[in-house]
């Protein structure tokens, strides 16, 4: 038996923790079994659903394990005696890890359920390897958040990156996917490199890789070193989380994966990176200077705004959703930034609100982004394309998918009473709270500027989802494929249905959710949120504010029914849409490009759009026989940050090529010289 350590109160806690451990173990075993099964059954496509079933069962285990810890409020450490030279793998199930385990589990269950039906129709991918990597991906994420030392964390962090990389490139014939995978791999390893330094550098002084020791000893490090560690953590975790300007891999890699994997990558994997950031910055580094919080808040604002603006310009459904993940990571970082500032300024109540807002939005974004990606997968399967300009009218042919996507679109646009509203409301409260506490004028202004940025983000996100939903599901079909689309199998809609229901539950009962999140907030150093009441009340923030989505929903329902009843069954005549005397077709509709055009003009300073019209004519320009339009926007960071770095690296590589003669004797000489140099350094000859 493994050595076990409990900390917590009483027998009830011990029972909850034993239960949690068992469930976690079952989950891990399920994933391993799923991976093995997938390899064994790769030739039998009729059995391809079983790895998904195993993954779903495993995720159920994760969800239950996480909930058991959050409800039992205790910490549980289990050490697996493996790889002793490196300190061994060890796992710990504290409330913070448990919360993230819940996120993994909830979205994982829905994605796996969806995957059962989806994988069967997946063309051009090796189902066996997809199933295996899918299971390993889930397994690594679960072990990253439960890892209790740096070795476990980094090992499975890398496992998470690699397994998702193989899922991204699983469409072998697609050169775009391979390129996306390459960009992803480079950015992922840039981040991992930072993290290796982050964990190993202080280890030279504190002689431990265990997280528990780090939490005790890191706060004693010199301030300069802590600043560097903070920046390393920000780059390392930020590159994985899709924080601007390290987001470039995200809109490329997420859409290339199968849809249920996209749901997990966008909904969950980014959150695992936020987990790392929270763990390191809040529990290891101790209270930092004020500019840490301002930097995170600023990066959050920039990520949110740029994410949603680029999403508006995107007409591929899955890439649009991927950009929205950048936006939502920005919103989460705003909450984290406020919490960091509050910690530096010694405002415990605000610290609690900031952390609660961030954690709540992490959960909510996982749910509605998962839902939207599953919907986009159903649409892609039914129409065979991800291009919104080729869709339209799908609400008539795929009512269930359309309903699920509408719930997701409304939730991500923060419409009450869905879950997105609850967490954005909390983020607003956190930012207002920063503006209210008279520490200094700049912190106040930072908070209220954050309010303005969040408001703009919310408005633009709503506009973007009006575009996405309207062009994909409403009006007339724009292609033959969209005309012939049919509803997807029930298991796929069931997976989306779980998440749609969660959008309602998480939105209607914010005080219950806050009560469950309480131990996780406490684990990060925040005071406990108020006990659950029938209304969600923040008495400790500024003066206090209350939110009651349930009452609001009740009033809305009453008003809706009253209006419906009162306006009666209207005698209705169906007729054609007015077409100014002509007949309307799919080509005369507003499409995604035209919908986004005013935004492109209003934000031209950012997009710097390029527009090209070529008309072909023989006699006079008024009698054209062809017309070609090309419009695109230019990407700021790609052009001014990544392109120079890339060309510099290529040039450097070119220079280095000169030392490569291809002659064996030259290489031997290099080896010999290197050996001499190393000996010289090692023996201090110089």
């Amino acid at each position: 038996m493994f050595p076990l350590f409990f900390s917590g109160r009483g027998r009830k806690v011990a029972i909850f923790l034993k239960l949690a451990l068992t469930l976690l173990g079952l989950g891990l075993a399920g994933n391993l079994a799923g991976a093995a099964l997938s390899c064994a059954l790769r030739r039998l496509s009729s059995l391809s659903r079983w790895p998904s079933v195993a993954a779903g069962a495993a995720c159920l285990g994760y969800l239950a394990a996480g909930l058991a810890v959050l409800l039992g409020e205790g910490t549980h450490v289990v050490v697996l005696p493996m790889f002793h030279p490196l300190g061994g793998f060890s796992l710990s199930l504290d409330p913070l890890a448990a919360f993230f385990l819940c996120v993994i589990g909830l979205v994982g269950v829905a994605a796996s359920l969806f995957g059962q039906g989806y994988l069967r129709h997946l063309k051009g991918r090796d189902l066996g390897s997809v199933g295996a990597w899918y299971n390993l991906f889930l397994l690594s994420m679960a072990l990253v958040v439960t890892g209790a030392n740096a070795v476990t964390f980094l090992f499975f962090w890398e496992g998470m990156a690699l397994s998702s990389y193989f899922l991204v490139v699983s469409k072998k014939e697609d050169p775009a996917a391979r390129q996306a995978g390459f960009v992803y791999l480079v950015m992922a390893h840039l981040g991992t490199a930072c993290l290796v330094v982050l964990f190993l550098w202080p280890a030279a002084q504190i002689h431990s890789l265990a997280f528990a020791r780090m939490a005790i000893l890191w706060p004693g490090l010199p301030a300069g070193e802590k600043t560097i560690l903070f920046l390393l953590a920000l780059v390392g975790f930020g590159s994985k989380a899709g924080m601007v300007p390290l987001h470039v891999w995200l809109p490329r890699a997420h859409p290339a994966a199968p849809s249920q994997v996209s749901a997990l990558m966008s909904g969950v994997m980014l959150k695992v990176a936020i987990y790392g950031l929270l763990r390191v910055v809040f529990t290891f580094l101790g209270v930092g200077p004020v500019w840490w919080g301002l930097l995170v808040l600023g990066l959050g604002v920039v990520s949110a705004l740029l994410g949603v603006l680029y999403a508006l310009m995107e007409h591929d459904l899955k890439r649009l959703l991927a950009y929205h993940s950048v936006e939502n990571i920005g919103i989460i970082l705003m909450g984290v930034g406020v919490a960091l500032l509050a910690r530096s300024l010694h405002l415990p109540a605000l610290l609690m609100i900031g952390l609660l807002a961030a954690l709540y939005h992490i959960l909510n974004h996982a749910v509605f982004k998962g839902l939207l990606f599953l919907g986009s997968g159903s649409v892609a399967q039914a129409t065979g394309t991800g291009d919104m300009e080729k869709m339209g009218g799908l609400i008539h042919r795929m009512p269930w998918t359309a309903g699920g996507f509408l719930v997701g679109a409304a939730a991500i646009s923060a419409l009450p009473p869905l879950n997105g509203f609850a967490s954005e409301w909390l983020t607003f409260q956190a930012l207002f709270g920063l503006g209210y506490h008279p520490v200094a004028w700049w912190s106040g202004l930072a908070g209220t500027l954050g309010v303005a940025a969040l408001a703009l983000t919310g408005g633009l996100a709503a506009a973007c989802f009006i575009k996405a939903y309207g062009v994909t599901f409403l009006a007339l079909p724009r292609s033959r494929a969209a005309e012939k689309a049919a509803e997807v199998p029930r298991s796929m809609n069931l997976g989306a249905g779980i998440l749609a229901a969660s959008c309602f539950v998480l939105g209607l009962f914010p005080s219950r959710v806050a009560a469950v999140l309480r131990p996780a907030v406490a684990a990060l150093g925040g005071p406990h949120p108020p006990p659950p009441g029938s209304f969600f009340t923040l008495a400790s923030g500024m003066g206090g504010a209350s939110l009651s989505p349930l009452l609001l929903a009740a009033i809305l329902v009453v008003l809706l029914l009253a209006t419906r009843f009162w306006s009666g069954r209207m005698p209705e005549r169906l007729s054609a849409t007015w077409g100014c005397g002509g007949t309307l077709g799919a080509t005369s509709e507003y499409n995604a490009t035209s919908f986004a055009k005013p935004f492109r003009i209003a934000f031209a300073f950012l997009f710097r759009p390029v527009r090209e019209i070529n008309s072909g004519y023989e006699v006079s320009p008024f009698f054209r026989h062809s017309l070609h339009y090309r419009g695109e926007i230019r990407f700021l960071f790609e052009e001014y940050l990544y392109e120079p770095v890339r060309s510099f690296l290529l040039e450097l590589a070119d220079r280095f090529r000169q030392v490569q003669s291809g002659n064996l004797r030259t290489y031997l000489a290099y080896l010999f010289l290197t050996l001499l140099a190393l000996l010289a350094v090692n023996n201090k000859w110089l």
Partner: protein
Amino acid sequence: MALTWLVIQTALYLALAPLVLGYIKKAKAYLQGRRGPDIRQPYRDLVKLWHKETVTSRTASWITRAAPLILFATTLAAAVLLPTISLASAVYLRYGDILTVIYLLATGSFFLALAGLDAGSAFGGMGSSRESLLAALLEPGILLALSVPVLTAGSTSIRRLVGASLSPAVLLLPAHLLALGAVFLAAIAETGRIPVDNPDTHLELTMIHEGMFLEYTGRPLALLNWAVQVRQLLVLTVVANLFFPWGLALVPQPVSLGLAGAVYLGKLLLLGGGLALVESVYAKLRLFRAPGFLWAISFLGLLALVSRYLFRGAH
């Protein structure tokens, strides 16, 4: 008791909203030297539309049918959150906060914009696209302007906002006045009036908001128009009662309620006259000039905030 107030407040909004529209139209006509339509004309239009046949597009889905109901319900739900004549009049005022009001209105707009795209007409799409651009750009301005009272009250709760503005020391603060200016400009944009949009036009080159209504007829159109009128009244009430809450009956007694009603009507007369004046004096901006106007609202709000941090005044 609570339920009675809820019903009274809802009825008040529904009854008063067309009258306010009629008044603004009349005031505008007066300023422009015309006789203008009768002040009761909006009621007659609603009754007329209510009894007309409903024609729906063949391409439309349930979104088109649900949007008027959703817009109507969300607008009313937001409206009852705001106090009109009495602080006691809104029962769930304790749980009502200004963010909920803003996002309830956004919910209605969201479904209306979807309905604009639903029928497949280019006009509807054009209306949706333009309206969502303007709504998005207006959002930061509204919140920056509202930040001033929110930070003064230390809460987003409407009851506390009203309470904080009741203090006479607050009114003459430069921050409060600048915020009032910003919120009045925001009200112009939010109600779809010149210089951002023209409520009287159905010309495709100039219309924004009306574009989304083009495919609607009969009873759904009446509901939509009515909801938009309630929304206009709601926006004016925000300006009137959040920034100048004087005259609100603090205790629900007949005398103070009557007085409060008169004061409320007076404020609406003043604000409606202001809207009519602005509409008569200014020309409509080109669509792509409108973002500049909206950014200016944000800057005014920002200025209000900066001045709040500079001159800390009474608190």
